[in-house]
């Protein structure tokens, strides 16, 4: 039996990983994906019968932070994902091959899994000036995306850069950075935003796809509903303080020491959809708000350019500034004066009114 014909069940059995272990794993994943517990046996059965899913991972205009964080996923580990559930056929940073050998690997992987592979993208797609601002092997990222997307079963846009353009798209966006969905319109796309994204979310999406042969339910921004259905604010352990109106006014005041809500310090939790507050980071250790800093809203589009910056509360905005306000006031006075003088000429002078 070849590696491609072997099912996951066969492979796990060969390694001494029994049905009970697979069922326990399926129960954990159904909980993570907010699926009914009754689906765990079906997931376990489907996983056992599934073949390893081919994943081709292309890195575009990015900082490798997404890959860094995904390598540290804990449940299941990316290592186990790579070896057990998926066949990571191409990833430049992780693979041993380089240069023409790497390119050959890519082409072979695409040819062998045509129409079946998942195309994972991290990094934004620069499209300005023909995409010259990010090249791989001399080829523009946008050109590679357009070549490899049509034969993919679906696309995973990993990280805020791939999903919405991210930091490279920040004003003035000199490279013309955009998200994958701005280039590819005719393929199923799952956005897994975050800077970086939560590794367990990627794990969940991959396991769901391998188990059920389709993508999980998505929200209007193509994010998995199971992880992005609620806001940070909704699940934040500091939420009771928000409801009580107890806010930290600075990062070192009594309110901050008491763990009060960070809304007034610019926390974007109320408008940010992600699973940080529930899944957390570093094997469930904590998340930014738990560490004393407000949420930056990194899983939302254009989070870098939001009005007022990271430390302006959502209640505020960006006003016109004192100079423009002065000009508006001067214009108002001029207009009012003109109207008053026009009125003077239209009406009879009060002092010249004739007595009745």
């Amino acid at each position, binding site marked *: 039996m070849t590696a491609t014909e072997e099912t996951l069940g066969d492979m796990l059995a060969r390694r001494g990983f029994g049905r009970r272990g697979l069922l326990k794993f399926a129960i954990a994943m159904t909980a993570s994906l907010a699926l009914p517990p009754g689906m765990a046996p079906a997931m376990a059965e489907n996983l056992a019968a599934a073949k390893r899913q081919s994943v081709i991972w292309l890195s575009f205009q990015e900082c490798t932070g997404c890959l860094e964080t995904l390598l540290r996923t804990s449940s299941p580990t990316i290592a186990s994902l790579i070896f057990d559930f998926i066949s990571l056929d191409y990833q430049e940073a992780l693979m041993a091959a380089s240069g023409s050998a790497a390119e050959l690997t890519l082409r072979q992987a695409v040819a062998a899994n045509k129409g079946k592979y998942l195309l994972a993208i991290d990094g934004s797609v620069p499209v300005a000036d023909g995409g010259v601002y990010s090249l791989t092997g001399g080829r523009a990222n946008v050109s590679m995306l357009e070549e490899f997307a049509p034969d993919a079963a679906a696309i995973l846009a990993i990280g805020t850069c791939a999903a919405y353009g991210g930091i490279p798209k920040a004003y003035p966006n000199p490279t013309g950075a955009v998200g994958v969905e701005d280039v590819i319109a005719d393929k199923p796309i799952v956005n897994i935003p975050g800077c970086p994204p939560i590794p367990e979310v990627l794990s969940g999406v991959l396991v769901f796809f391998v188990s059920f042969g389709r993508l999980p339910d998505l929200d209007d921004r193509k994010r998995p509903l199971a992880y992005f259905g609620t806001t940070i604010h909704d699940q934040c352990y500091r939420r009771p303080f928000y409801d009580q*109106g107890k806010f930290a006014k600075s990062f070192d005041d009594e309110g901050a020491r008491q763990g009060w809500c960070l809304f007034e310090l610019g926390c974007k939790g*109320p408008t940010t959809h992600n699973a940080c507050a529930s899944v957390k980071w570093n094997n469930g250790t904590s998340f930014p708000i738990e560490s004393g800093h407000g949420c930056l809203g990194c899983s939302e589009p254009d989070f870098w350019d939001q*009005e007022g910056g990271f430390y302006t509360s959502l209640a505020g905005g960006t006003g016109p500034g004192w100079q423009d306000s002065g000009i508006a006031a001067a214009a108002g006075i001029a207009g009012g004066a003109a109207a008053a003088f026009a*009125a003077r000429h239209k009406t009879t002078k009060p002092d010249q009114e004739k007595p009745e």
Partner: protein
Amino acid sequence: MTMLAFVRGPAMQVATLILIAGMFWRLAGIFLLRRRVAHAAARNPFAVRLLGGAVTVFTRTMPRRTFWPRVGAGVALSYVFHIGLFIVLFGGAPHILIIHEIFGVSWPDLPKGAVVVASGITLAALILLLIRRLSHPVLKMLSTPDDYISWVIVFMPVLTGILLSGETIASYGTLLALHILSIEALMIWLPFGKLMHVSLVFAGRFVLGYNVSRKGAAT
């Protein structure tokens, strides 16, 4: 650009500039209007006239006792609405935060529950005032589109504020965007309708009292 980013950015800037320009336009227009020259000698010295103006600011806060049976309900509801709005505006933590961001001054906020209750009472008073306006034949006849537009313009921020505090019906971001948008609509409309009384009511009373005092009449 999301709706929230729009209302917190470009829309906020435009609304603020219109508010400032409109306010100064109205104030300058009123200030520069031709006034009758008073030929008669003043009955009271300047200091007394000033006092007369100042006293009128307060005496006109209540109608004459004779009129209470006819206008008492409306006055009471108006007071409930205005005091409620004052509490919401200057007691709510996010509102104080904005004032602090713009002017650098702040004060302790009220508990969120108290502000929500005040908002609810304000909303109820607004609805009752509208019912009264629609059911009172004289008031209805005297009403102009300005009255109804101003009612909607004031009603919406209070309504969206309550929805935002409860975070029901829609997401926080959507409700916040709607709340800010409704406030921006108010900012744009304020100088051009009856809501301008925000800046004219006390000045108007003062001028009235001053002129009456000049003539030697009681204020």
